[in-house]
C-alpha cells in the first residue's frame, strides 16, 4: 500500500469529513476454500466412523480395559522405559568414546553406530531371537584359558532378552548420535576452564559438559521415546505379548481384527499424547537460553527441598 502525502490525506478528509475509519482485513479466499474442504473431509470421516458398523465400536469399548490388553500395555510401557534407560547409558558411552585419543575406541564407536543404524530393528530382533541357530552355547572363557561359565543359548534367549537386546542395541546407536551432538554444542571454553582448574576429563564430563549438553539432548530424546513406544510393537514377531501382540492374540481367536487394532491404536495414541505433553514441557524448559532454565530449576529444587 502506498502512503499518502499530507495534502492527499487532507483532500480525502475534505471530501468525506465524518467518515469513520473502518479496518477491513484482507480477504484470503484460498485459505477459506481449503478450510472448507478440510471440514468436509473431516465430517465425512467422522460420519463413516460413527455409522459404518464394521468398526464395531461396541467391541472396541468392551476390550479397551480388558486384562489381556492392559497387561500388553504394561509390557509395552516396561519395554519402552527399560530400553530408553539402557540406551541412554550405552549411548552416552558411545558418544564419549570417540573423544578419547585412542583410535580403536573411536572407530569401534563409529562402526557400532554404522551397523546398528544401518540394519532394520526387525531383522535385529529376529536375529537375537534365533541366536541359538548360530551359537548353541554362550561361553565365558579366559582367552586360551579355562572356561568360567557356559549356558545353553535357548535358555538364555527368551522373548524378553531377545527384545531388549534388539531394542537397546539399536536405540543406543540413535541416542549416541543425539548425545554426541549435545556434547558438541557445549563451548570448548568450558572444558578448558575445567582443565585449568585441575578438574579431570571424566569429572568435567560429568559435572560440566553433560549437564550443559542436556539442553540440546532432551528434546530429540523425547521424540525418540515417542518413536520407540511404537517400535516396541515389532517385538510381536518374537511372541512377546506387548500391546499389539495382545490384541493379535485376541483377534486370532475372535476374528474381530479391526476393533482390536483400534483398541491398540487408541492406547498408542493415548500414551503418545502424554509423552507429547511431556516433550513440550521439556522443550520449553530446556530449549530456551540458559538463564530461565537454570533459574527455574533452582527455584523448583528449592521448593522441593
Amino acid at each position, binding site marked *: 500500500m502506498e502512503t499518502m502525502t499530507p495534502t492527499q490525506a487532507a483532500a480525502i478528509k475534505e471530501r468525506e469529513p465524518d467518515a469513520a475509519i473502518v479496518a477491513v482485513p484482507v480477504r484470503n479466499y484460498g485459505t477459506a476454500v481449503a478450510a472448507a474442504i478440510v471440514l468436509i473431509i473431516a465430517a465425512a470421516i467422522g460420519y463413516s466412523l460413527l455409522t459404518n458398523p464394521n468398526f464395531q465400536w461396541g467391541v472396541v469399548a468392551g476390550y479397551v480395559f480388558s486384562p489381556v490388553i492392559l497387561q500388553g500395555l504394561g509390557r509395552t510401557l516396561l519395554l519402552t522405559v527399560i530400553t530408553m534407560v539402557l540406551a541412554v547409558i550405552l549411548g552416552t558411552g558411545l558418544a564419549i568414546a570417540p573423544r578419547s585419543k585412542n583410535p580403536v575406541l573411536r572407530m569401534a564407536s563409529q562402526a557400532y553406530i554404522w551397523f546398528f543404524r544401518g540394519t532394520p530393528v526387525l531383522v535385529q530382533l529376529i536375529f537375537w531371537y534365533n541366536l541359538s541357530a548360530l551359537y548353541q552355547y554362550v561361553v565365558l572363557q579366559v582367552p586360551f584359558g579355562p572356561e568360567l561359565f557356559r549356558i545353553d543359548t535357548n535358555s538364555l534367549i527368551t522373548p524378553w532378552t531377545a527384545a531388549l537386546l534388539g531394542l537397546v542395541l539399536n536405540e543406543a546407536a540413535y541416542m549416541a548420535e543425539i548425545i554426541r551432538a549435545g556434547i558438541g554444542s557445549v563451548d570448548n571454553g568450558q572444558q*578448558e576452564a575445567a*582443565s585449568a582448574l585441575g578438574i*579431570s576429563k571424566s*569429572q568435567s564430563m560429568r*559435572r560440566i559438559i553433560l549437564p550443559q549438553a542436556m539442553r540440546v539432548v532432551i528434546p530429540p530424546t523425547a521424540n525418540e521415546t515417542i518413536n520407540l513406544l511404537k517400535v516396541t510393537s515389532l517385538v510381536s514377531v518374537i511372541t512377546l505379548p506387548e500391546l499389539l501382540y495382545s490384541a493379535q492374540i485376541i483377534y486370532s481367536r475372535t476374528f474381530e481384527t479391526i476393533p482390536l487394532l483400534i483398541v491398540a491404536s487408541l492406547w498408542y495414541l493415548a500414551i503418545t499424547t502424554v509423552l507429547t505433553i511431556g516433550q513440550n514441557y521439556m522443550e520449553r524448559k530446556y530449549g530456551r537460553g*540458559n538463564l530461565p532454565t537454570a533459574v527455574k530449576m533452582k527455584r523448583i529444587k528449592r521448593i522441593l527441598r
Partner: protein
Amino acid sequence: MSAITDRQRPLVEASNIRKSFGHLEVLKGIDMVVEQGTVSCLLGPSGSGKSTFLRCINHLEKVNSGRLLVDGELIGYRQRGNKLYEMKEREVVAQRQKIGMVFQRFNLFPHMTALENVMEAPVLVHKENRAVVEERARRLLDRVGLGNRVNNFPSQLSGGQQQRVAIARALAMEPKLMLFDEPTSALDPELVGEVLDVMKELAETGMTMIVVTHEINFAKEVGDKVVFMDDGYVVETGTPEQVLGNPQEARTKSFLSKVL
C-alpha cells in the same frame, strides 16, 4: 632445600620453548623467567603467540621442545635420566591445581551460580569439606566485590562481574601462579576498570601473575616486568619504564606507536 633458596628460585623458568600447530611454528624458542611475587605483562601483536605460551605454562598445550619449570617442577613431563616422559592425566591435573587461569571469554559454568562456580573445583578436586569451601568462596566473592551476587547465574551478571567471578573461581584453588589471557578484551570499556582494580589488589597481596594484556597503563602501573613478543619470539624484556618508555627494538617501537 632451604627456605631462603626456595624463595629466591624463580616461580616460572622457560627455556627455548618451541611449539608448532602442524607446520606452523608459533613459538620459536621462548625464554622467560618469572620471579615469585612479581607481575609480568605480555604484550605483542595479534598472532604473536602470547596465548599459546600462556597455555603451555599450564599444559593446555603441549610444548614440542624446551624446558618449562613452574615452582621447580617440569610441566607435563617427568625426567628420568636424560629422557623426558610424558605425564599421565592425573599428574598433569595435579600440576594445574597450582596454576590459576583467567580467560578472555570468562568461561564460567553457565548452569551454576557464582558461588557454585567458585566452589566446584575445591569440592570436586580436593574433596574439601563443603562448608569450609563455601566459607572461603563467599570470602573470595566478597573480595572481588560480589558478596551480594553469590546466588546469581553468570547470565544474570555483567561481563565485568563475570570476569571477577572467574578470578575468584581461580583463586579458590589457592594457586601459586595466576595466568590472565586478555582478561578485559571482551569487556565494554566502562567495565574494564573494575576488573583491573581486582587484579591490582591481587598483585598487591604478592600473587605471582603473568598477564597478557593490551592495557598499557595497567602494565606501567602494576607490571614489574614487560615482555614484548612478536612472531613467536621474545623481542624485548625489561621494566615497564625500559620497554614502554624507551623501547630499543624497532618492532617494539612500531607496536607501541599503534596501541598508545
